């Protein structure tokens, strides 16, 4: 089964019908019904914080009760966190977020090569992105 990493940007674009990329996100998600969707705890924390802020309690509930149960959520272990800190420190001028660095390290260790994401930092890092 194909494993696909799910980024914060994809979760928020799915929720927000006003986002100009929403229909593209929906179409992409609808094609992923047979894939194994994977993310990590920092993405959950980030998505919840933003959804709560912009969509209110109902936004957080939609993530917790509806979207996230369809995704396998991994804890960020010490090895991933330590390597991500080193990546972030080394690339600090680039502006890539720490959560993105955790995601890139997590994907490398889990040998996941494709991400459902609306963030150019992933493609720049050589990740295959959906939608392309």
């Amino acid at each position, binding site marked *: 089964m194909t494993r696909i990493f799910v980024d914060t940007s994809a979760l*928020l674009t799915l929720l*927000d019908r*006003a986002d*100009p990329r929403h229909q593209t*996100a929906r179409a992409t*998600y609808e094609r992923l019904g047979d894939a194994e969707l994977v993310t990590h705890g920092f993405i959950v924390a980030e998505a919840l914080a933003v959804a709560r*802020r912009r969509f209110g309690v109902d936004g957080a509930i939609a993530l917790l009760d509806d979207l996230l*149960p369809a995704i396998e959520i991994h804890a960020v272990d010490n090895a991933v966190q330590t390597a991500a800190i080193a990546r972030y420190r080394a690339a600090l001028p680039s502006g890539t977020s720490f959560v993105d660095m955790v995601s890139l390290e997590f994907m490398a260790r889990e*040998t996941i090569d494709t991400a459902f994401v609306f963030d150019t930092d992933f493609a720049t890092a050589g990740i295959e992105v959906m939608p392309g």
Partner: protein
Amino acid sequence: MERTQISLTSDQMRRLRAEARRRRVPIAAVVRDAVDRVVPIDPGDRRARFERALTAVGRFDSGAGDVAARHDEIAGDTDW
């Protein structure tokens, strides 16, 4: 997470350690991955969760439509 104890042959343990080193992950992570591959989540359950997730797609209207694009900035202004 639930804890368990298993017995492996020396050769299985050698291969398990080698794969964990290759992936640079704990041995337990390789075991969990192997379990998911051999005993996958029931397809019906997976489909039900996927269908439920679809009900949340497009549920909100941010107005500006910039929440995902600006999520790093919004997260920075938010109490976590």
